[in-house]
């Protein structure tokens, strides 16, 4: 079987069960692709010994005839997940050398299901960024290029390494996390599928915290079916995460019928932004037509507080980050600065955090500190939480009116060049998440599906937003969109 690394999870699962391929073969194919893809800087910690041992165990289990869907599937794991005995540093120098003594719930569940870990994936530092340019490991690079122009493009962020690795077929799928769009935006920039589940669907235990009320992990995959299979393996109640939902996990794959007749899809008018590129408008209109042709009813809707989602996010997320990142103090783990004679504990904290955190992380921690400080707490933090209530209410209102899912663009542009935004003010970078961030604030499931390419050949994606806990229905609508769009483009291999 040629090019095993290019298989989907579903195809690999079926071939493994038939005995046409072994997990050891799939794993070797991926390891050799990873070795020759250094230029993408997607994998930042390689774990071939673990991968080979897990693959051998998976092959034995498959042979015994009782293997779950993910058994023997080689994955990349975002560096934000704690993996026992393997560096897990959230792409930050402050966690340099940190090797967790425990395994995150998500990776435990995947490994219990027989999945294989190829290594850890690049990302923005502490998941703060939309271009993977804030990483202590350096930039991850998008396998896609603009036509014959060989300038390096961002794979998006924060799950940039995950997106690059899946798009370049270095692994069959990868884990990602999404606080404001960090699964969906990189998925759109690299022509892959990514789903952020409902807040509480996937345990956050053992995932390095950024903004705890917004963070959710999810799969980044080659198609919608794979997203359904992998999401099911990641979901479930976990007593170690007090926000984890005690709800049954459905068989998401079984819900992929492609039949969306009678479903009502909302098109929110506030997502039509001034200055939105014509190609994005066109993509969105085409996606709308595809769902209509598949039998869905299309309704124009209004989500009036959309405009305030990004400003609310840039109060709430930094506030929570400033609290979560207070733990990096040079005492219990990670980096400690070299101290001068006479330095006390305050100098240790201040020097450690100045050396260990990158610029964007420092800025967000300080903004968070400011909005939570005495005298500003009500004006900024409490007001943002009230606006968040209104944003959630916007969605509740349209769902109560019978909307099953909402279709929007995933990003306001295709992938941009690495370094192109470095002179822009921080707000320009934040605008990347303008269509995705509302979903985190409202705790809803959202999925990015590639549906087209722009005139330079770069992938573009649409986002579907679903009702809380109805990932199965959302995945089915995404499946119908995927079938209609027939997106098959792949990046030309240059790395």
């Amino acid at each position, binding site marked *: 079987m040629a090019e095993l690394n290019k298989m989907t999870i579903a195809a690999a699962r079926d071939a493994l069960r038939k005995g046409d391929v072994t997990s050891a073969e799939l794993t070797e194919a991926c390891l050799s692709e990873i070795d020759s893809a250094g230029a993408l800087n997607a994998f930042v910690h390689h774990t071939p010994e673990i991968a080979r041992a897990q693959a051998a165990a998976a092959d034995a289990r498959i042979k015994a005839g009782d293997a779950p869907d993910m058994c023997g599937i080689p994955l990349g794991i975002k560096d934000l997940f704690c993996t026992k005995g393997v560096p897990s540093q959230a792409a930050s120098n402050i966690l340099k*050398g940190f*090797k967790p*003594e425990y395994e995150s719930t998500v990776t435990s569940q995947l490994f219990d299901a027989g999945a294989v870990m190829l290594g850890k994936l690049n990302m923005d530092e502490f998941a703060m960024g939309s271009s993977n340019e804030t990483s202590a490991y350096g930039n991850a690079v998008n396998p896609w290029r603009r036509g014959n122009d060989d300038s390096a493009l961002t794979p998006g962020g924060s799950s940039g390494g995950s997106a690059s690795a899946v798009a370049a077929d270095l692994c069959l799928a990868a884990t990602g996390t999404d606080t404001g769009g960090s699964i969906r935006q990189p998925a759109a920039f690299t022509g892959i599928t990514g789903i952020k589940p409902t*807040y*509480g669907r996937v345990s956050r235990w053992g995932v390095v915290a950024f903004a705890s*009320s917004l963070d959710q992990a999810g799969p980044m995959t080659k198609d919608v079916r794979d997203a359904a299979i992998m999401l099911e393996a990641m979901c479930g109640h976990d007593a170690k995460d*007090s*926000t984890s*939902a*005690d709800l049954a996990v459905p068989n998401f794959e079984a819900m992929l019928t492609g039949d969306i007749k009678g479903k009502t899809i909302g098109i929110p008018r506030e997502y039509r932004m001034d200055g939105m590129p014509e190609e994005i408008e066109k993509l969105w209109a085409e996606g709308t037509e595809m769902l209509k042709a598949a039998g869905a009813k299309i309704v124009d809707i209004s989500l009036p*507080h959309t405009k*305030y989602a*990004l*400003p*609310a996010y*840039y*109060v709430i997320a930094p506030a929570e980050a*400033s609290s979560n990142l*207070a733990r990096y103090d040079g*005492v*219990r*783990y*990670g*980096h*400690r600065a070299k101290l001068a004679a006479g330095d*006390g*504990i*305050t100098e*240790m904290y*201040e*020097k450690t*955090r*100045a050396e260990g*955190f990158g610029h964007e992380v*420092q*800025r967000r*921690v*300080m903004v968070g*500190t*400011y*909005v939570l*400080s005495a005298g500003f707490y009500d*004006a*900024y933090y*409490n*007001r943002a*939480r*009230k*606006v*968040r*209530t*209104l944003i*959630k209410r916007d969605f509740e209102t349209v769902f109560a009116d019978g909307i099953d899912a909402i279709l929007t663009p995933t990003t306001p542009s295709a992938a941009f060049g690495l370094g192109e935004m470095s002179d822009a*003010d*921080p*707000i320009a970078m*934040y605008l990347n998440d303008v269509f995705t961030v509302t979903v985190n604030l*409202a*705790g809803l499931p959202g999925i990015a599906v590639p549906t087209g390419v722009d005139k330079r050949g770069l992938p573009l994606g649409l986002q579907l937003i679903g009702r*809380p806990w109805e990932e199965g229905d959302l995945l089915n609508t995404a499946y119908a969109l995927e079938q209609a769009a027939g997106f098959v483009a792949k990046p030309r291999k240059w790395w």
Partner: protein
Amino acid sequence: MSIDKDTAAKVAKLARIRVEDADLPALAEEFNAVLGFIEQLSEVDVEGVEPMVSVTPMRLPRRVDEVTDGGQQAKVLANAPDAREGFFAVPKVVE
């Protein structure tokens, strides 16, 4: 509301991040860009709106009050930059 150099220094101090004096004006400017952006929130009528506490309606679960973990001193200290005699070691705190 504009942030000056002194406020930036105060925030850096509160966040326990050392910022050199020379870098404070640029930092204050970045704060002002971000705060200018979030200033839009003041346009929203939030009269009578409850601030969100939990995005999904849930009660914080409680468990039986019993010891379920412990005895992992070596694991807890394994990643410490400086651990001695079973403790985290830090510079002198009390004179």
